[in-house]
């Protein structure tokens, strides 16, 4: 059966074929239905005819392997695959939603909108990395948005699963990827760095904010290699009023040396969701490329770069955890605060790339008097923030590893749990406090956080006298 040219109404295995929705160089997509199917489905048929690009074969094989293994809302649900020889096809969930490609058509977008769109993308990429997979072909067309705003990543034909043979690498022995979005390390044949996906996200952010591609779409290998030493024109060159935090984030993602990029997609997602927390460096206001001397230095390095082996994604993520420290500063609990400080110091020493999020929760409704109440809350807010900074200063960590938040909410446990979930927190460190009568009645915050958090929770006790 010629699968790339099916007529609507035909049956393939148990699937009822509907309209053809896409016909590309690599694959053809159809809507399909099946008896008892619970969600919309599509069938992807690779082009296998004579003269097809060999990557069609390998891409199909890799996608079949990896998609069948991935779980969660950020990938299309996998349904079935046909046999390779007779009926090569994949059936998966059809995600009804806009692709980032459609948004990119309207670039430049306001920075806030771009940040919102890409934060969801970074969240999806983080989820992928947690499952030992690097996508390696992140581009707007492969990013779909569900109705709720969550991103679904599609097209895993170039992806890499760290616990399986890399069929793509052995098939090509040359850089594969989309020329506009491919990272420098992929160009020199390195397919084992999760931060390659962060580079692609940086290109997308640049594109959304400026309407231009930072490296164009080169077609030759020498064109590809330019990005190994020539950094892009800063986004503010094109959009002078682009917020400094956005340029900071974009250029942080586009660092040539992967080690200088964000450590994890979770950190990137956090910064996009909290622009006011982004520490600004020289990157933020740059208007020109690097000087000639650093370009020459990078060019020289690019000629002699050795491939570095990277750890598997989850090992890498484990070295860059997001640690939430919940504390109540300045309430006369010095011994407990010192104990928490010691616990955080140990965690920070163990993992070089960890992020410490210092958080305190402010209870609302301080006063019923509208006018003065508002002011009071504002000054309390500032006071708490100052206290958090003061407490954290003793950690002696660089600014980029720290974030501070004063959260508001009547129920501290609920507020902390929500914050931890939204910000991909890997560990919560908090104090065990109080044997007061009130706590006995209401139950302690830490007990509820321990019970309900979906990450590790460390409850710190002050040393007893």
């Amino acid at each position, binding site marked *: 059966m010629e699968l790339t040219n099916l007529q609507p109404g035909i049956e393939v295995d148990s699937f009822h074929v509907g309209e053809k929705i896409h016909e590309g160089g690599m694959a053809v997509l159809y809507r399909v239905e099946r008896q008892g199917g619970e969600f919309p489905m599509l069938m992807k048929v690779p082009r296998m005819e004579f003269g097809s690009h*060999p990557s069609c074969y390998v891409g199909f*094989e890799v996608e*079949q*392997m990896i998609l069948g*293994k991935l779980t969660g809302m950020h990938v299309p649900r996998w349904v079935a695959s046909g046999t*390779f020889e007779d009926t090569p096809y994949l059936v998966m969930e059809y995600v009804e939603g806009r692709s980032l490609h459609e948004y990119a058509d309207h670039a430049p977008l306001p920075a806030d909108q771009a940040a919102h769109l890409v934060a969801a993308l970074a969240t999806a990429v983080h989820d992928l990395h947690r499952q030992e997979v690097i996508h390696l072909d992140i581009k707007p067309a492969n990013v779909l948005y569900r109705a709720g705003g969550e991103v679904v990543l599609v097209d895993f034909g170039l992806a890499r699963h760290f*616990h*399986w*043979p890399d*069929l793509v690498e052995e098939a090509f022995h040359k850089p594969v990827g989309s020329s506009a979005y491919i990272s420098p390390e992929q160009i020199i044949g390195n397919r084992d760095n999760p931060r390659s996906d962060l580079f692609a996200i940086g290109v997308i952010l640049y594109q959304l904010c400026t309407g231009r591609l930072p490296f164009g779409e080169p077609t030759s290998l020498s064109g590809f290699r330019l990005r190994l030493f020539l950094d892009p024109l800063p986004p503010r060159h094109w959009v002078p009023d682009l917020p400094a935090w956005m340029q900071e984030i974009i250029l942080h993602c586009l660092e040539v040396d992967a080690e200088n990029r964000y450590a994890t997609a979770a950190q990137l997602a956090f910064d996009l969701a909290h622009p006011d927390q982004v520490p600004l460096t020289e990157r933020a206001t740059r208007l020109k490329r690097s000087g000639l001397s650093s370009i020459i230095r990078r060019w020289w390095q690019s000629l002699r770069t050795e491939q570095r082996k990277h750890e598997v994604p989850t090992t890498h993520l484990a070295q860059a955890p997001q640690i939430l420290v919940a504390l109540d500063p300045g309430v006369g609990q010095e011994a407990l605060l010192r104990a928490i400080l010691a616990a955080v110091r140990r965690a920070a020493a163990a993992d070089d790339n960890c992020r410490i999020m210092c958080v305190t929760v402010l209870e609302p409704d301080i006063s019923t008097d509208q006018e003065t109440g508002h002011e009071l809350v504002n000054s309390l807010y500032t006071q708490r923030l100052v206290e958090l900074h003061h407490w954290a200063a003793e950690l002696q960590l660089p600014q980029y590893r720290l974030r501070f938040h004063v959260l508001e909410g009547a129920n501290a446990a609920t507020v902390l749990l929500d914050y931890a979930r939204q910000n991909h927190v890997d560990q919560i460190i908090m104090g065990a406090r109080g044997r007061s009568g009130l706590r006995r009645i209401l139950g302690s915050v830490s007990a509820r956080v321990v019970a309900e958090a979906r990450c590790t929770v460390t409850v710190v006790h002050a040393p007893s006298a």
Partner: protein
Amino acid sequence: MKVAVLSDIHSNLEALHACLAHARSKGAEQYVFLGDLLGYGADPKACLEIIAPMVSAGALAVMGNHDEAVLGGFCENLAFAARDAIYWTREQLGQPERDFLKTLPMVSRKDNAFYVHASAVAPERWTYIDNVVTAAKCMKASGSQLTFVGHVHHQTLYYTAGGGAAQVFIPVAGVEIPVTQHRQWLAIVGSVGQQRDGSPPAAYLLHDQHRESLTYFRVPYDYLSAAGKIRAAGLPERFALRLEKGS
């Protein structure tokens, strides 16, 4: 159907018990023994008392070089210490055990799988598959989609790439690896009874035919007892040490 593939048991009863129990808990319904049931270890008879009835009941088993050596000859191709173990093993076995060993074929095939102790290329020569060239030759000779071998004690996965060349992959224990249909795959399943990679746990492989996947396992077992029996039997000390150190 899930098939447990076990190789190079080398008379290690504790390791065999542990791997069989592990495989059962993982849902194995069929068993294949890739040879070298004997040699090195102190429990040849007890191991065969487990394996021979399984073979009568439908499990597959092929001949290994140590099994062949036990049946006779001067064992020229074995190291001196290994020969000592073979001579000792000969004394432990009776006629029924020797009769069982004589029935072992050099290779076995079932469905899309090919089983051999050393290599599908001239199995009687006991070639070691320790690089992509010998692996490619072995896959070509077997002609099957899946070839399972032992002999080399390191768990390794080879597979064909474009142009007939082979690629090598070092599997991660406990991770299921899908094996796609239009390539050939060569799995070196590792050794149940004697490790050489610095880590004592026993090794075997589970082939899930329905899901078309392979999972390499490492199973902890009581290697101190197995080593103690080797010393008590007066077998070479280095074989006991090897179990304790895994190398």
